[in-house]
């Protein structure tokens, strides 16, 4: 029951080992090989993530879930190139963009200028920036809020500006670190729909970190379960549910239940150690 490799058809039959679902002849969008990250040294050294092998196919939406201390955020930082792995290799096809739980918008800039800054820093010529910003604002349905400052927007709107800013980076891989974690359930549901519809044509890849299993089941093509201290891949679940999905649908709930029991087993194992 707790072995994800032998769960029922809804959950799929992906092996818990490495290298799934990348079609032959295509490079994975993100490839991790034996990636470890150790903080500190000597006797106080702490391994945040330990020998992670993971391939993410182009256009795939992968959710990483795990209890506290599983190194989810560390992993995203490594993929984003903000930090270097202690051992192992990380290959990313194309550019990455990273979103946080905090929208991290610059308070001195308007909505439009926050998005424009991402273009400016990529050296997009000035004449091209205006129309790009306008189209990005339309993408996240905020065209009438172009001149507002971050403090005048709600949490959900700020997160959508952050999403537009991430799109402005023209990233091939969008890394999301619990981006909807601080939002209320209603706003989160709507943003799930929003994200799904923006990603519908699968022109980019998403690696989405969350501790919310339902959210993972709602969004993911594949859920990767990480163990805690150190973070290791302990299970993978393919989510074969038609899109667009609803978070309250029985199929999503069933997968969430299976993943939750896997996570609980993981937590119990820690108590026994």
């Amino acid at each position: 029951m707790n072995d994800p490799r032998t769960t029922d058809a809804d959950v799929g039959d992906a092996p818990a080992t490495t290298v799934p679902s990348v079609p032959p002849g295509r490079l994975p969008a993100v490839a991790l090989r034996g990636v470890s990250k150790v903080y500190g040294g000597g006797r106080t050294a702490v391994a945040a993530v330990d020998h992670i092998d993971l391939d993410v196919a182009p256009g795939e939406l992968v959710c990483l879930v795990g209890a506290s201390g599983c190194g989810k955020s560390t992993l995203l930082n490594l993929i984003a190139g903000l930090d270097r792995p202690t051992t192992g290799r990380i290959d990313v096809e194309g550019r990455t963009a990273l979103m946080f739980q905090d929208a991290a918008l610059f308070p001195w800039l308007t909505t439009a200028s926050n998005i424009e800054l991402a273009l400016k820093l990529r050296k997009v010529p000035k004449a091209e920036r205006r129309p790009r910003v306008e189209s990005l604002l339309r993408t996240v349905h905020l065209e009438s809020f172009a001149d507002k400052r971050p403090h005048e927007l709600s949490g959900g709107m700020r997160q959508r500006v952050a999403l537009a800013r991430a799109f402005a980076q023209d990233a091939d891989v969008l890394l999301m670190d619990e981006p909807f974690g601080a939002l209320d359930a209603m706003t989160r549901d709507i943003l799930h729909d929003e994200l799904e519809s923006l990603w519908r044509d699968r022109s980019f890849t998403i690696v989405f970190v969350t501790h919310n299993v339902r959210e993972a089941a709602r969004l993911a093509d594949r859920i990767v379960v990480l163990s805690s201290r150190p973070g290791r891949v302990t299970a993978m679940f393919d989510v074969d549910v038609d899109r667009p999905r609803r978070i309250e649908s029985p199929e999503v709930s069933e997968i969430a239940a299976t993943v939750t029991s896997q996570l609980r087993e993981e937590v119990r194992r820690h108590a026994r150690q």
Partner: protein
Amino acid sequence: MPGSEAQTLAHDQELAGLDLLELAVDAGESRGRRLWRSTWPKVAALVLGIGFWQVVVWSGWRPEFALAPPRAAWNDLWEYLEEGTLTTALGITMRRAAVGFALAIVIGTIVGSLVARIRPLRAAVGSLITGLQTMPSIAWFPLAILIFKLSEQAILFVVVLGAAPSIANGLIAGADTIPPILLRAGRVLGARGLAAYRYVILPASLPSFVGGLKQGWAFAWRSLMAGELLVVLRGKESVGFLLNQNREVNNSSGLLATMIVILVIGIVVDSVLFGTLERAIRRRWGLLDAAR
């Protein structure tokens, strides 16, 4: 697929509805009311202060040549204005203030940005800057006079030394208190090196920098007054010169009139110029309490 289209429409409407519901309602106060609410305590304090002064004069504590009544000071102030003495004096003094303060901004900003981000430099001179800030600027004058003689440069030197450390410290404190998430966001967007300075660190330090400017101005103004009392130059009838001259001829009313001018300029630059700038920035950033 019509089903999916209907769903998209519903989703867009939900999003728009949520946006409107979540936006804060702006219950604005009328401009006149706000102005009155901030003005009347100041007027009351002024009336009280002048009243106290008048009472002390009436008590006969000091003869009138030492402590003139408000009325006499007021008359002298008018006289200065009509003669043009005050205009000349203010012209000389404000030019010194402007040049010194501008130089202090340039030096303070350069030193502040370097010290804020370069670790060894910070360890070396960080506490020295704070030390300079607490050093009374008048203590610099003997050295300034030895180096530059009795000259404009001596005054300028002390004004800059008075103001620059505060300005540098404002910038350093601003850079120290940038939320780390904004620095990370900047790095993710590709702001490195000089671009990080220009697009993240400097704008993020702005509120604290303006605080430093404000404090720097206060120090510059004090240093300048001290300088004009100590370094009296021929043909330069500055505000400080007026103070000295009135003391020498026991003209208490003229002295008090000059002091009022000094006080008013200090307040106007501090609260009107920097205060307005500070409030504008805080409002833009959403740091102002909505109730105020």
